[in-house]
């Protein structure tokens, strides 16, 4: 079934179980290097800047941003969609590869899931912040209340959005956390510190590794996985309805749900790649996260990139084919040419062209190549969201309302802050939670290794 000669071993180096535990848990059991403190410091500063920007936004008002009477949504929604997209990686990784019985996922899914949880939490920050009266955000919760009762507008995509994101956050968090139970137990058993023992013991929820535990664990994974699989598709489909239900040229299109889902997986995988390229080097986990793994992600990316290219051209084609002058203007005179040419072509080049480099094995096998291309994809996906949100709004139906939009440092600050929080979150995750699912890796440790032949 598994052809070692073609695909090589899943885990390099034919390791014993204890060796695996030791190597993977090493970052937690040893003090991190100076680089960790420096990066953590920088991310914290960025996060502090973000908190300052948030403080100004909440205390003074949305006026501190660059949005205006015509462009009601700016960077904050761009970033919201961007983070949500990144937040697709973990679940997509775990679920789709789980369903497709791609066992190599085991080395990466934990980190990807952690990333998901952090990214989705950061994403959820933006819709809250962009509310004019964030202190009344609870109006969006549908619950019997004393205000009438006044119910939410079930027709509004923003409400669907709220439901989808909340559900997604809950499920991906549960999936991630419950998947870690055996590992927490392992740490609990290995550690000598009493405090750590208590903490990990608490989070390990009394895991003993009995067969019954394992049976329940497996079935729970499948149940949660089943739910999450639907969510991966639905969340970004629903996010896309924020735009697709709108009447604005460039928004009002039926292509959006699949286009957004694919785009989200694209950006999520790219972010996973960015992180993994760095992590496996720093933590010397190349045996676990092998070149083959990176190669596989790169292949997925080049495939999705083709889908993205198709989506972009479909969008442009339909704008032309519809003969709708507003659509035509938005695409041909405000994106392909016009004020937002840079963002449009940035998107095309970063998302549709640069990833084509992954056709070359050399690029797929070079860590620099992987890093650079994945960073370009991250950037390109940001451009894509900018294109959708800002260009459509800036020049829509009535030319008297046309404006240009420039972000202020407060808006940029919030974004920088989320980047800082993300980095800090990921760094803490490396420090206190096993990067790789130890128990799962153990189950695949021997696949493709000589022993099995």
């Amino acid at each position, binding site marked *: 079934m598994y052809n070692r000669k073609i695909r090589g071993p899943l885990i390099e180096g034919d390791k014993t179980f204890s060796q695996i535990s030791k190597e993977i848990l090493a970052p937690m059991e040893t003090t991190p290097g100076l680089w960790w403190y420096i990066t953590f410091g920088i991310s914290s500063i960025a996060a502090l800047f973000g908190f300052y920007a948030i403080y100004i936004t909440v205390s003074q008002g949305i006026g501190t941003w660059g949005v205006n009477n015509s462009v009601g949504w700016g960077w904050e929604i761009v970033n919201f969609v961007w983070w949500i997209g990144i937040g697709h990686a973990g679940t997509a990784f775990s679920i789709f590869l789980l369903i497709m019985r791609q066992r190599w996922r085991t080395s990466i899914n934990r980190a990807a899931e952690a990333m998901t949880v952090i990214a989705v939490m950061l994403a959820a920050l933006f819709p809250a912040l962009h509310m004019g009266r964030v202190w009344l955000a609870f109006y969006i919760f549908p619950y019997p209340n004393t205000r009438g009762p006044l119910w939410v507008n079930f027709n509004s995509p923003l409400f669907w959005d709220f439901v989808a994101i909340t559900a997604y956050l809950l499920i991906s968090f549960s999936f991630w956390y419950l998947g870690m139970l055996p590992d927490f137990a392992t740490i609990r058993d290995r550690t000598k510190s009493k405090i750590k023992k208590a903490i990990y013991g608490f989070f390990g929820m009394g895991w003993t590794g009995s067969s019954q535990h394992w049976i329940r664990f497996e079935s729970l994974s499948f149940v949660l996985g089943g739910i999450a699989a639907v969510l991966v598709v639905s969340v970004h489909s629903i996010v896309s309805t924020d735009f697709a239900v709108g009447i604005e040229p460039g928004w009002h299109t039926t292509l959006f749900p699949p286009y957004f889902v694919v785009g989200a997986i694209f950006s999520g995988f790219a972010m996973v790649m960015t992180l993994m390229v760095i992590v496996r080097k720093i933590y010397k986990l190349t045996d676990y996260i092998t070149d083959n793994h990176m190669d596989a992600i790169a292949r997925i990316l080049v495939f999705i990139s083709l889908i993205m290219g198709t989506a972009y051209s479909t969008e442009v084609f339909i704008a032309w084919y519809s003969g709708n002058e507003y659509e035509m203007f938005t695409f041909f005179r405000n994106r392909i040419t016009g004020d937002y040419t840079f963002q449009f072509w940035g998107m095309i080049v970063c998302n549709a062209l640069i990833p084509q480099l992954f056709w070359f094995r050399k690029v797929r096998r070079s860590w620099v190549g992987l890093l650079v291309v994945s960073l370009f994809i991250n950037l390109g996906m940001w451009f894509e969201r900018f294109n959708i949100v800002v260009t459509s709004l800036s020049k829509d139906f009535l*030319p008297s309302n046309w404006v240009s939009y420039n972000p202020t440092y407060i808006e940029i600050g919030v974004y920088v802050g989320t980047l800082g929080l993300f980095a800090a979150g990921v760094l803490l995750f490396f420090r206190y939670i096993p990067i790789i699912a130890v128990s799962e890796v153990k189950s695949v440790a021997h696949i493709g290794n000589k022993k099995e032949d």
Partner: protein
Amino acid sequence: MMKKYWKSVEEFQGITAGDDRNNEDKYKNELLELFKKDFLSKNSSRRDFLKVFGFSLSSAALIASCKRPVQKAIPYVIHPPEITPGKALFYATSYYDGHEYSGILVKTRDGRPIKIEGNILSSFNGEGTTARVQASVLSLYDDARLKFPTSDNSPASWNTIDEQITNDLAKINSAEGEIVLLTSTVISPSTIKLINEFGARFRNFRWVQYDAISYSAVLEANLMCFGKAVIPDYHFHNAGFVVSVNADFLGAWVSPVHFIQKYVSRRIPDNKEKNMLRHIHFESGLSLTGSNADKRIRIKPSEERLILTELYNRIAAKTGEEEFPGVAGRTDLAEIADNLLASKGKSIVLSGTNDVEIQIIVNGINTLLGNYTDCIDLNRNLNIAAGIDSRTEELVADLNSGKVKALFMYNVNPVYDYPDSEKFLSGLKKTELTVNMTGSLNETVGKAKYECPVHHFLESWDDAEIIPGQLSLSQPCINPLFNTRSFQDSLLKWSGSSISWHDYMMTNWEKEYFPKAKMSGFQNFWDRSLGNGVFSYNISDSKPAIFNKEGLIRAMNSREKTGTDGFEVILNESVTLGTGMHANNPWLMELPDPVSRHCWDNIAAVSPADALKLGIQTGHLIKLADGLILPAFIQPGQAEGTVSVALGYGHTNSGPVANKVGVNVYTFIRIIGGNRVYGFITNELENTLKQSQLALTQVHHSMEGRPIVRETVLSKYRNNPASGNELHEEYESKHRTLYPEVNYDGFHWGLAIDLNLCVGCNSCVIACQAENNIPVVGREEVKRRRIMHWMKIDRYYSDTPDDPKVYFQPLTCQHCDNAPCENVCPVSATNHSSEGLNQMSYNRCIGTKYCINNCPYKVRRFNWYRYTNNKAFDFNAASDLGKMVLNPDVTVRERGVVEKCSFCVQRIQEKKLQAKLENRTLKDNEIKTACMQACPSGAIIFGNLKDRSSKVSGLFENPRRYHLLEELHTLPSIGYLTKVWNDEESKS
């Protein structure tokens, strides 16, 4: 023993156990039991602890966090009988600021004037008002008003000041020193009488009237030609053909509110009896009038004289009159001359240039055409401006020579708007007794020895005779807010009279006008006049004007050098700020200029061709002359070689809003031939290449071929009234929906906007702002495109940038029946009423801005900051005084909520309630939105679309009707009517 009452048998029998209704009380009591005396002695359980803990915590939180600002409401001690809290009272009065006049109604709530409407009984302006009149109510609550009299810039009591002035006057008079009264144009007959009586007390008295924007040449020319120093009234409604030169009579010249009504009444294409007026306009900068003209011809100011001379000669040639030397080079003038002759006696030629000779030539042309019978009225003239330039010059010279001993100034600001203000100031210093009487802080305040602040016009008695025989009264609508005194009371005091100005005026009316009214009892007459606000009597028609050709011969033969190589700079009156005396009014300061759509600055409008040649871009600071550096603005339609700059900006001491905004260009006015010339010639424009960002409210000017403003020309319209509007039928035929269409029973409110009548004056914008408590956001926020106006007038250009056609389109919430904003709000804060209104519940809004994005018209506004009580937005809403203008019927919106046009729902509800109380149905036209009521041209009509007989329904039946972006199937409740040009050559 007490009698026992019982409500059930159980209660009577004392059975209460198991009664659920008492449970609630039981729990309450349980909680209270905790605090009984023996509480401490009892052993408390964990439950008790938690209860006390919870109770104290929640009460502490309640007490600590829910502190509300204390607001004091002071009740009446003696309740005035006419005031019902919550009910508005309207007082008829007149607006006159020395420059502009309107008969008005003032809406007061609880004794506060809060809104101004036109007085429908006033034949001068009817219900129409201008933006400045609408905004004047805010000036009442201006912190920059003068609050007490001063002597040598220190507060003094009226008694001391009166005593000193009376003594000084007596001293000067005994020495036969000259006493001068310098006022703005006075149109009050009683005041004129008073001034004459005041002057007669002195041996050497002179009264000089001075206007910041001078119409001296018109007055002098008419004096020379017809023996009457008047500004005639122009009856545009009688004219079929109008040629205007440099006169922005729809925007600023003489009295736009008066002219707009007459003008648009002849712009209706359906009028069977009278042809639609054709209007040709010559000008340099693009004005509101030029924008509305069927044909606009760009000229340099120096060419005006040649053109008018040639026009005269061409008409004279055809009528067999004497021709004068002149170059006949323009073929377009031949056509215009033919057209004028074709509508002989039914045409108007007018010029706005302050040059006597030009005005004489214009008079000559009108005489040749016989226009003085029907179209130009010298008998029922407009008493708008009476200032003669040479008299002001004389006065300033006399001040400097020390000839004048006492100078009284009333409602003038010469330190700001007199061209040589230095000279005026030095003259002022040489004068023994100087008294300034003005209402609000300005540059002249503080320069005179005595400041005797006058009332705001809403606090004072006055009368006005705007047209001979058409009188109006002013009455106080509020007690004087500050220690001020009317100008007339001061004069009476200083004349030693003990009579009050009110009594003086009443006596005058009893003597002068009561006999003309043929009524019994003066009190009846007075009450009726005061109630109506207006009174008119017939004046005997004096004989037709005889033209004195002498002046014309002289004017035609005096050949000045014309044509220059340099740039000709035109200094024009701003449509929004007027002369600049209201510059401290934040509503007006933030009102975008109707054509350039900028505010909070004055700009140098350069032509696109010159801009290309000189590499000037909008926002570049350019130097026009020494001390005159202004941001450039590329103005389509600006004549090549000319630059237009608005007057009225660059104040230094007029209050926080006005100060340091723009540059004062009054100082660049030259005096040529005894007249003030509003312009100068500069040799080169120097581009400093420095950038400044302008507060522009619209930056894209083309409709991009979209059917936004639909237009046609008259000939096509006659063949097919739906011409230019063919798309409407097409879209209507495609009208499909999956859903059952909403059926409104009762009311379905709708608004029709006739684009052919709208001249773009922006009056509706300020009316809306005043009615709906719309905040002012300031220059920086306007730059960020966050102006809050619910209603705005979009301006588009077509054709070439050099010679554009201009379109105005009032835009506000379209109240779509299929509103894209409504279904996207996650909390249903915006929804549709059963009467077709798209409504906003501010309390529910959480500010996601989704509705703003999804509104294809982008008419929703967001409260980006807290605009009230916020020192960062230090306009009227940040001061206690300024907040008195707020309309109590309209919520002041909080930071973070979305707001927009409500179709003045407060007015709808008020009238509905009134009809209900009177047990009748609503009449058509009973409810008027603020924009509709303020519109001087009647372009906006509101009403019930369900009522087939209503005016708005009629307009919706009109084949010219279409909806904005109707292809989106938003089903707007606002219908637009196509624009019809009376022009055959248009490319449309």
